Structure formats: C-alpha cells, structure tokens
C-alpha cells in the first residue's frame, strides 16, 4: 500500500502547541518516492512528471522513468501539479546568532576587535531560534551562518536547519573566513539632513581611501606572517590567529570579502594574486562594473540583497534587480542572498524571482539560490541540486517557488528526513483562527 502524504496533513492537526514541540525529524528509514513532480534540478534541467527516489538520506535516482515498487515499506509523495526543488540555501545570514536585532542580549554576531580570524560563528549558533522554522516554511533548508565585524570577523559555517544543537546542525564547519572591507569612500562629516544639509566634504587631513587601503594592507601583512609561521616545523609560541587562517592559505577555506565598491573589489583581487585564495565577494552591488575581471580571476559573488535601491541617483531604477543578469552574462559564478533584517531571510526565493523578472531565466535564478550557492560555499558535491548521489535536500511547492503568488512549500526533506514545516507563525495563526473561529464551517473543523 502506498502511503500518500498530502501536504495539508501537517497543518490540519489542530495541535495548539508552542514551537517547542516541533521536533527535529528522525533519520530516514523507509525509502521515499516523490512522484508526478515537475522537478527543477537546480542545474538548469526541468523534468516533467518526474520521480525522485530517496534512500538513506541520499538521492538514488531522478528522472521521468523511475519505477516505483509496490511495497508497504516505502513512502510515496504524490506531487502532481507541484514543483520540486533542491533545498534553498541562504548564503549569508545571522540566523541563530541574532534573535531580535534591537535587543543586545540576543546578539552573538559581532566580536570586539579588528582581527578575529579565530572566532567561529558555529559555536554560537542557536539551533532553537524561532526564526529557523519560518525559513524552512519558505523552502530554505540550509544557511551559512556568518559573523559580523569591523574587519576580520571570523569563520562562517553552513548549517542544516533541522537539528537539536549546533554540532548536529553543522553541514560544513568553518568553511570561510570573513573580512569586512573598509568603505574606501569619503563620507561627509557632521550635520544631518533636514536642516539644510550637511557640512560638506570630509574633514581635511583624513583620507578614507588611503586609510582603508592601509588597513587592507595590514591584513595582507598578517597573512604573509601567517604563511611564514606555517612554514616553520614547530613554534616556540602558538599563535591562534595564525592557526586560524591555515585553511585559508592551503585552500581548505575560502576568503569571503564583504564589499560593494569597485575599489573594494579591486583591493580584494590582490588576495587572489598574492595568496592564491579562493575569493568570494559578499555584497557586490557594484560587481557588474568589473564582471570581466571577476571572471578572469575566478572570483564568485554573493549578491546580498537584490531587493534594494539603486546605489546612485543616476542609476537605472532597476539596477539592483538587473545585476544578477549582468553577472550571468559575464560568466561569473554568483549566488543570491536575502540579507533583510526585517524579514530575516525568508524572502530569499523572491529576491531570486526578481532577478528572473529582470534578465535571468527562472532556472538560472533557481541555481543562484541552490547549486551556485553550494558551489560557492564548497558543498556542491553533497547538495545544491537534485542529482544522484547527493543528499536528499528537497522542497515541494504548490507552484513556482520564485513567485510569492504561487510559492507554498508543503513538504521538505533534509538529508532524507521529512521535516515538520510548522513554525511559530503558523502556530500563532492557528491560535487566533481558533479565537475568531475563522475555520468554522470549513471542512475538517
């Protein structure tokens, strides 16, 4: 007998529970077959009426001619009329590090000091954050948890979003060191708007470009010394900061440089040339202007917030929406993030959808939040697409997941585990639907 899982099942129980009862799923036991699906594999392919076979947490088969055995010991998910996607990956996030941004006590995201390569975001990741489940509800199954900082902020880790603790959550630990570049731009000094504008140019004597470049140079000097340190067979004194960048120097870690302006991007390219690091630009709002250089040096880009205003008054009003297409055209590997601190990342797919409205194909836009992201973070061998051998990180949506008009996630697997898509918001919704008897007269009430 097939067990048909209808997506509404998980919602239809009137379990008025707190989120505390949303339990991480147990490991996959029975094989799962997702059938009759429109499968967007994440690598550009679309399979109509396709089947995915999942066993032991892995994708064992995908295609439109996969036989489904008659067995009581399998689970079959009929996804007729639905769209199936790889689990979305949020490439930069303070998830689990910031619960409520205005409340200082709930912030564990920015350590004191300019040079913190040894700081690890993973160890502070709160796997019980209320935000996590709201992301899963929109198809986000993994997030790269990133420390913030003044300059060298520490290492990020990719977590999967169904875990009892951070150790369980870690999908890839300490994958990248994050550096926030100085702005390399003059800022007006003093005064504010509304009362006649500000006081004019930067106070004389300070040159933010030069100061910023000096600061960046100091990090290069640090890496040079770290390199020399690691060339020594033994050390009289252990230097934790040098130890922390070992992976960066031997390409086991990537360098994520947060920056937007062309000058910042050019300064970042130096690190590829001198240290041969794997460089990823985070932010990159001006990246389209140097796309050919980025391509030449194999630098990838995480566009942090396509839903943003143009940088300059003179810019095309839709420039931030079009930047992704410009990078695609230039052949730059890029990914899309959703850095919005009011919605906490839940609109990731819609940021990609906007890029699709302004020049990307839908499958390219999907790749920007799945496979490209996995490549950039360095986990494409395990996830990011619906391909045989990869972890079964899979999302089922009623319609096009890139469009809020049709996106409605009804089913999701993380490493083959069927996760509970309940979240705090759904529970509060149920609670007050009860209060106002909004479901009275509806079926199943």
């Amino acid at each position, binding site marked *: 007998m097939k067990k048909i899982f209808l997506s509404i099942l998980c919602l239809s129980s009137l379990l008025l529970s707190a989120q505390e009862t949303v339990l991480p799923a147990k490991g996959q036991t029975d094989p799962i077959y997702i059938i009759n699906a429109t499968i967007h594999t994440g690598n550009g392919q679309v399979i109509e009426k396709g089947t995915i076979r999942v066993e032991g947490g892995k994708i064992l088969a995908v295609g439109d001619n996969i036989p489904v055995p008659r067995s009581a010991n399998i689970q079959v998910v009929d996804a007729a009329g639905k769209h199936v996607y790889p689990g979305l990956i949020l490439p930069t996030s303070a998830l689990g590090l910031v619960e409520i941004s205005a409340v200082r006590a709930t912030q564990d995201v920015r350590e004191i000091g300019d040079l913190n390569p040894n700081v690890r975001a993973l160890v502070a990741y709160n796997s019980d954050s209320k935000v996590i489940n709201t992301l899963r509800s929109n198809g986000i199954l993994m997030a790269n948890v990133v420390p913030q900082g003044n300059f060298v902020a520490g290492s990020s880790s990719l977590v999967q979003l169904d875990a009892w603790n951070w150790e369980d959550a870690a999908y890839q630990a300490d994958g990248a060191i994050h550096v926030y570049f100085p702005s390399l731009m003059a800022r*007006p000094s003093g005064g504010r708007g509304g009362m006649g*504008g500000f006081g004019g140019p930067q106070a004389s004597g300070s040159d933010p470009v030069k100061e910023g470049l000096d600061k960046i140079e100091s990090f290069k000097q640090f890496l040079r010394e770290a390199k020399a340190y690691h060339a020594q067979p033994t050390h009289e004194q252990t230097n934790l900061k040098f130890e922390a960048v070992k992976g960066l120097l031997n390409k086991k870690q990537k360098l994520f440089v947060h920056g937007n302006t062309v000058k910042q991007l050019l300064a970042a390219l130096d690190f590829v040339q001198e240290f041969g690091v794997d460089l990823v630009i985070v932010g990159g709002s001006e990246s389209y202007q140097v796309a050919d250089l980025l391509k030449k040096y194999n630098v990838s880009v995480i566009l942090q917030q396509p*839903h943003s205003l143009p940088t300059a*008054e003179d810019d095309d009003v839709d420039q931030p929406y079009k930047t992704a297409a410009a990078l695609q055209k230039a052949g730059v590997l890029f990914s899309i993030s959703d850095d919005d601190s*009011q919605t906490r990342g839940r609109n990731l797919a819609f940021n990609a959808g906007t890029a699709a409205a302004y020049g990307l194909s839908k499958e390219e836009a999907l790749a920007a939040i799945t496979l490209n992201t996995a490549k950039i973070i360095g986990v494409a061998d395990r996830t990011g697409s619906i391909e045989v051998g990869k972890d079964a990180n899979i999302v089922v949506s009623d319609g096009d997941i890139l469009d809020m*008009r049709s996106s409605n996630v009804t089913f999701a697997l993380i490493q083959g585990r069927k996760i509970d898509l309940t979240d705090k*918001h759904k529970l509060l919704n149920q609670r007050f*639907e009860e209060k106002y008897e909004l479901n009275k007269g509806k079926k199943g009430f």
Partner: protein
Amino acid sequence: MRTFLKLLAFSFSGLSFLQTFAQPTFPENGVADPRQGYYAFTHATLVQHAKSTITNATLIVRDGKIISVGSGLPVPIGAVEIDCTNKFMYPSFVDLYAEYGMPAQQNTGRGGGFNFAQQPQLETATKGPFGWNQAIRPEVNAYASFSINDAQAKSMREAGFGTVLTHVRDGIARGTGALVTLANEKENLVVLKEKASAHYSFSKGSSTQSYPSSLMGSISLLRQTYLDAEWYKNKPASEGVNLSLKAFNENRSLPQVFEAGDKWNDLRADRIGDEFGTQYIIKAGQNEYQRIREMKSTNATFILPLNFPLAQDVEDPNDARFVSLGDMKHWELAPTMVAAFEKEGIPFCLTTSDLKSVSQFATALKKAMEYGLSETAALEALTLTPAKTLGVADMVGTLEAGKLANFLITTGPLFQDKTQLLHNWIQGIKYTIKEDAGSINGTYTLAVNGPGGTEQFTLEVKAGGATTLYAKDTLQSKLSVDGKQIKFSYAPIAKRTRGGGAPGADSTRRPTGGFGGRGMGAMTEQLPVTATRLSGLVNGSSWNGIGTDSLGNPLSWTASLVKAGEYKTDSSKRKELPVVGSLTYPLLPFGWKEDQRPKSETLLIKNATVWTNEKDGILKESDVLIKNGKIAAVGKNLSDPSARVIDGTGKHVTPGIIDEHSHIAAASINEGGQSVSSEVRIGDNLNPDDVNIYRQLSGGVTTSHILHGSANVIGGQTQLLKLRWGGNDEDLKFRAWPGQIKFALGENVKRSSSPLGNNRYPDTRMGVEQVLVDAFTRAKDYQRAWKEYDLNKGKKGFTGTAPRRDLELDALVEILEKKRFITCHSYVQSEINSAMKVAEQMGYTVNTFTHILEGYKVADKMLKHGAFVSTFSDWWAYKMEVEDAIPYNAAIMQKVGLTVAINSDDAEMARRLNQEAAKIVKYGGVTEEEALKMVTLNPAKMLHVDEKVGSLKPGKDGDIVLWSDHPLSIYAKSIYTIVDGTIYFDRAKDEQMQKEIDAERLRLVRKMNGEKRSGAPTIPAQPSYQFMHTCSDHGHSHGLLVIDADETK
C-alpha cells in the same frame, strides 16, 4: 602739466590721519584739529545710480555727506579740489547680509534631526526673563555686540562695499541687525541705524535645546512665536515678563530678513510671511534658479550669494561614479542664477555672504556677468536695491545731495576687466585701495647720468605697466610702481631667436582682475642680473632717482613726460553666453526638460485584464478610457477619436498603488524634541527633489502618505501626496484631503533603543497612555475656553481676552472635531487596546493603526472601535515588540472584518507593494482581488479619499497602472504609471532617459576635467550622498550613498 599737478593733489589728499570726525563728548588728548572734509571732485564720469551717468561731473562733499552733484559745477571756496579727469565715480556698495563686527560664533548646536542616541535637553539654557526656547532670540541686538574690525572692513572696502547690514547669525528669531559703514572710526560714528532690520532663519544655531529637532519643528516654532507675541500684547499676567516676545513684537516693524538658503526653504519662509502679514526679504542659497517661477511668486526681494560650486576632480572614473548628475548639473548651472533673477524681473541684492573669502567677490561677480547678468543690474543690486529694500535710500545707494559720501573712484567703467578700484570713500573719508598707477601712462624722455656721461632714451609706459624703452635700439626693460615708488631696469636684448616684437617691451600679461585686482607686479620676462637698475620717486610729470649700471657704477636719472597716455576703455564686446545643459524639473536624473514635462492626455487602454475594485470585479479583455485627468469609462469596446490608444492585450490594468505609510519626499520627518508635537506638519517641508518619487512611480505607486516618524507619542501632521514627479511642493499635495496626524506607541516613544537611557517622559507604556490622556484633557479644556470666548466676545460688557492660540492643541481639537484623523504606529496588543480606551474615553476614534503587527490579537476590538489597519506583510523579530508578529496578521484582520492595507514604510519596498499584497494570498489565503485592494482601495478608504482614488470607476481620478503581467506576480512590471491622466512613468521612455543620463554625465565629466586641466581650482570628488528618512523603527540598509537621517553624527 596742469593735469599732473592735480594728480599730485589727488594722490596725496587721502592719507587718513588728515581727516577724522570729531566727537564732542569725547575728550581730546592733544590739540583739537577740526576739519570739514570739504572736497570737490571734478571732471569725473559719475554714475549716480545704475540709470544715470553724469559726464564732466562735480561732486561736492562736506562733513561726510554729499552737498551737491552735477555737471561742471564750480568748485566752492574752501573746498579742496580733486581732479578726477578720466576717472569714474560710483556709489559704493551695500551688503545686506554681513556679519561684520559681530562676535565669533560658537556652534554648539545639535544641528538637525532627532537623535535616538542623545539625551534630550527639554528646557532652555538661556538665563533671564526670556522665552521658553533657546532658538528664539529676538532680544538680541546686533548693535549691542558690534565692534569695528578694520581687517574685516578693509576686505569689504576692497571689494567696493561702503555700508553693510550686520547681524548675529544665530537662531530662528535672531533679533535686529544694524546698518553700519565700513569706515575705520569709532562705533558711534559708523552705526547709521542701530535697529535696521529683524532676522530669521530655520536653523536653531547654537541652541542646545532639543526642540525643534526638525525643519518642520522650526517652522512650527516660528509660527507659534508669531501667535504668542500677538497674544502677549495684551500683557497676560500668567506669562509674566517675557522679553523675547516683547522684542519680537517690536522688531516686526523693521524690514524682515529671512535666511532661507534654499529654493524650497525660500517658499517655506514666504508662506510663513503670508500667514502673518509679513513680506520677508529672502536670503537665498545657490539653487533658486532651478525654480525661478516659484521664486517670483513670493514677491520677495532676494539677497543672492555668489558662492558658485567649484568643479570636482572627476578624472578617476571610480570617483566620478559617485558624483551625481544633479550635482554636476548644479555646478554648471549655478552661475546662471543671478542672470535668471534679472531675466525674470525679480528684485535682488548681492551679498558677499557664503563666500569663503570676500576677496572672491569680484571674480564671482564677473562669473555671474559672464553668464548673463547685465552691468546695470549688477550695479543696481549692489547699490540702490539694497538701500531701498532696507528703506535707507535716503542715506546710501546713489550719489545724490544729502546722502552719505560713500563712493568709489575707478580708472574706468566699474565692471570692465582692466578697470581698477582706486579709492573707496566712506563717510567722506578716503580709503585707498590702490595707488593710481594708470596715470603714469605716457611717453617720457629718460636721461641717465653715469660715469660715461648722459644717455638719452625714450620711454613709453602703457596700461598695465608695459614699457618700451629705446635709444637707437629697443632694449629689454621692466618697470614697477608701488604707490609713489618706482623701480625700473633695462638691458640690451639678449641674442636669441624669437619672432617679432621686443621681449618685455610688450608684455602679454593680462590684468588678473577687475577692480581690486592686483597691481603691476612682476613681469613674466626675466631680465639678466647684469641689467641696469634704477629706482626713484614719481613726482607728477617728472621722476628722479638713482641707480647702478651693469658694472655697478652709480647713476642718477630723470624722466620727464613728453606726452600723456590716452585713456582707453575696454572695447565693449559682449561675449557669447557660455553653453550650458538644459535645466530639468527636478534637477535630477529622470527630471523633465521644460518641453518634455508630461501632460494630461486622453488615454484608451484596450483589451486588458481590468481590476476594477468595484462590484464588476476583474474584467477580462476590457478597456479603460481616461479623459481630462479622470476615468471616463471602463468596459468593452470603448472608443474615443481623440484618445491615444494603448494596446493592453495580455496585460493588466489596476488602480494606482497607494502607500499608507511612507517617508519619502520630505526634508525632515521626526520632531522628537517633545513628546507631543502635533503642531508640526510634514506638508511644511516637502522635498520634490527626491528621486524616490520617480522610483516609486516605476513600481506603480501613485499616492503616498508621508508620515511623521515615531520619535514621540503625538507626532506631527501627515501629508498625502500624488507622485506628480517634476512638480513643486504644492503640486505634490493630494488636493482636498482631510488631514491626518501620526501617533506612536511603544518602544520608540519610550526611547528604548537609546544607549544612554531616557529622561524624556514617558519611559513606559503606562506613561504613554498618560501622555495621551493629558494631551486630550488639555485639548478639551482649550476647546471649551475658545468656545466660551467665541460665544461671549460680541456680548456687551464682556471683558475677557482671547485664550492663547496653541498650534499643538489646535491639531488635537481638530481630532476631537473629526476634522483630522489619526494614524497610530503601534505593535503590541496592550498598547493598541489602551490607545482605543483613551480614545473612547476622550471621544475620538483612532482612524488607522499602522504597523499593527499584533493587530491579529485584538482584531475584534479594533473592529468594534471602528479603526482601519495598515501593516507589513512579513516583517518581524527586529525588535522586542514585534517578537509575535506573523505574516498571517493581515489575513486574520481581514477575515475578522477590518479594512486592511499593506504599506511600505520603506522607499525600496514601496516599489514592490503589489508583491507585498500577493503575500497575503500566500499567508492566510485571502483572494487575489482582496489582496490587491490592500494596496489600492483599502488605503484610499483609511485616508478618506476613496471617493477619488482606489478603484476604476468613471469620475474617479485617472490614477492607474498598466502591468506587464498579473499584478500580484513577481514578474509584473509597470509599463505605465499614470496620475491624473498624466503618464509619469513610461518604461520605454525610462530606457531612453537612461541613455540621455549617460550622455549628459559624460559631457559634464569631460567639462569638469577640462576645467581642471585649464588650471581652474577644483575640489576632490564629492560622493553625492542622499539622506533618507525612516520611521527610525527598523534597520533597512539602502546602499553606499544613503545616509540615514537619524544616524548619529
């Protein structure tokens, strides 16, 4: 010969120790030396004023005043004659906007903007029986702190000024200005009028008090001060002595000068003037040329500064990238401003104010003239207009009998390049600006006596000090004159190949400036060290001196005039006006050129899916006709021969999007200086130069409700806009709209995010409730007091006086009288509930709860209260009070029966409000039609404009959007956004405009680079930062060039 004798007198007459005023009450330390200062200036070309020139004029001066002036008047007995043959005389200039002789300012003020991180100072720090606000200082008198400062005076005199109006530039009401001359005499004698003017501005200056913390607060404070001063005339006992209000009343009879400093501020000031029966004289900024018609409509006389922006160094494309088109265009067009005022016939004066140094004045004025300002207008703006404007034309401004002997003597017509300002006479006292060098021009016989006998040369001295010296051969020579002293050197011409003329004999050096320019300095040509060097004194037509020859032998020499030089004026060829780019409205990218401004059209959209928001619902394959700015018809097979037909096949038409909660297009948003600031009005400080207006049109928004921020419980009056991009501040306003006001509850008004804690009441939600109770209790008492007064004031025997009019309480009474509606920033259920209970107790309704993220918890109560609700689709967890916010909120409230809107509160999200509405289908399952209403008809209802906008119904405003796709889809783009039948956003045209922007940027970058290469001064590239106002509620980042207006300094 005679000429030279007189010139001698001319040169010697002006040493200042020869003249001084006697002050009878001041004891003399020595022997009295009374003088009359009796002079006759003869044979001058005398410009009495811009429109009257007398040739062969005589000007007779005595005791510092002009006795008479006319052509060929005889020299009176007892007067010293000063021959001004070949000289020109002008009235010296008057500057109405000086700070001359005022104490140095200490700018301790907080500038502008409410600051969540700073502790408020709620009371004035000024000691004494003055008013409540530190920025209202009408009691300050410039004369009281005036002390002459000859260094300042000298630079002004060198620029041609004789009289200035000076005041203390500090505060919103700044007290009185004093009219003083620039003579270097005791203060008693130079003060012409001790209270000559009263001064105002929008800047709180050195005030450390929190209120006002916004432009609109400054406006309200000034308006309230007018009302209070009027009320104070009746000496209300309750006020005691208030010297500020007393002085404010006294100052009102003086000429009123308002430092506005910006085109929109000029209009704001003028409106205050209109309200209180005052015509301000407006001190302008540099951008008034951008709205010259509006400037004219003020009927004001303007005081124009000449500090034109310098070219920026944009050679590095990285730097150029962040310099906006608007800034570059402003650089190019700013010098046209004065000419624009002249052309438009707007009266104006010129000032040295705002220049880095007064010495730049002549150059700046010349620039204004290059860009079209006529000489006549320039002179008038520097003399008669300021004199008349200040009502002191009986003293200064022209050269007429009875006026002060304040005049300039120049070598030629005033504004010509070669003309030099020789003397600036002030109150009959001569101030030498430059010795009269031009008068030595002529041909001389030079005799040099050395060991070898006497050598004879012929010396020709030309204008500018160029010399030709020859005996048998032409020699290389160089002459310099410093006052009476002369230096001259010569040598045989060195052998070198050089075409034409004699080196040094005819220098190509051009004068460096007009009047006040540098004198004869070093020539570029260097003489050999072995040159013969002579020095001596000029003594009229003969010069005598000594020197050394090339071998070091001593020499003596004499030179005698053979023939005096002819005076030549510049050939008055009018140069072509510089070519500049066209003005756009606004002067920003995507601004309209004058002839491209969009106009209302008859538009027929055919065969589209039409979302009517009426009982017809969604009509497939239907037409919409817009005519005369209104929707004329909706249906199938419409036609109109006059219409421009737009094919809507496969596309969707919806009503224009209405954003219930926005903070764009305003100069200030938060008046946080007090917990109740209902007197402030967003509408007082609209900013039509916000590119976000255009950006939001691109997202289908046609109407935005601009709210006060959330810094305090009772914020300010809001303003509803129609996004008529390119219009002025009045054009933007939604016409005939009942006003609203912003209230706020919770964390922001408690200043929970302040790192220093909070000293401003309230600090809890308990206190927030009490602020509301208190405010409305006061409002009701006030309402009653006025009612009683109005009822009784006509009755016989009534002796009461009118209550004090209070703008703050006026707005609250409007709420009680249902003439003004509340939109209340609120989050958690306790505060929502309390706000309704206070309202019910006080007899008003909370019209709209905005944000209202816990609205779903008390939806039934809000329904019962009669409130509307406006919320975000999916924001949460950015602060404690939104911990329980859920995206199902809107749907629950809608299902309970509330009218729900989805708003932006964010300039970026406002461009995607259709998509935000779509999320309410996703989260909570409302129908698509109901979702669209949440950004169209529903906000129209809560703004009480649903009779005009929000649905497609014949007779309603022609505010619509043509979408490329289903309007709730992420793939939908606005093809046309139409307001009042006028296409303000056209996606095809937008693409064209982007190309034009690129071309215009390229042109201007090249022009700036050219300026740099030509050696003109440039400044480093200045990134064009934009200020953005927010609710101060959440932390959206808007990019590299945006500065949050609430950001800490």
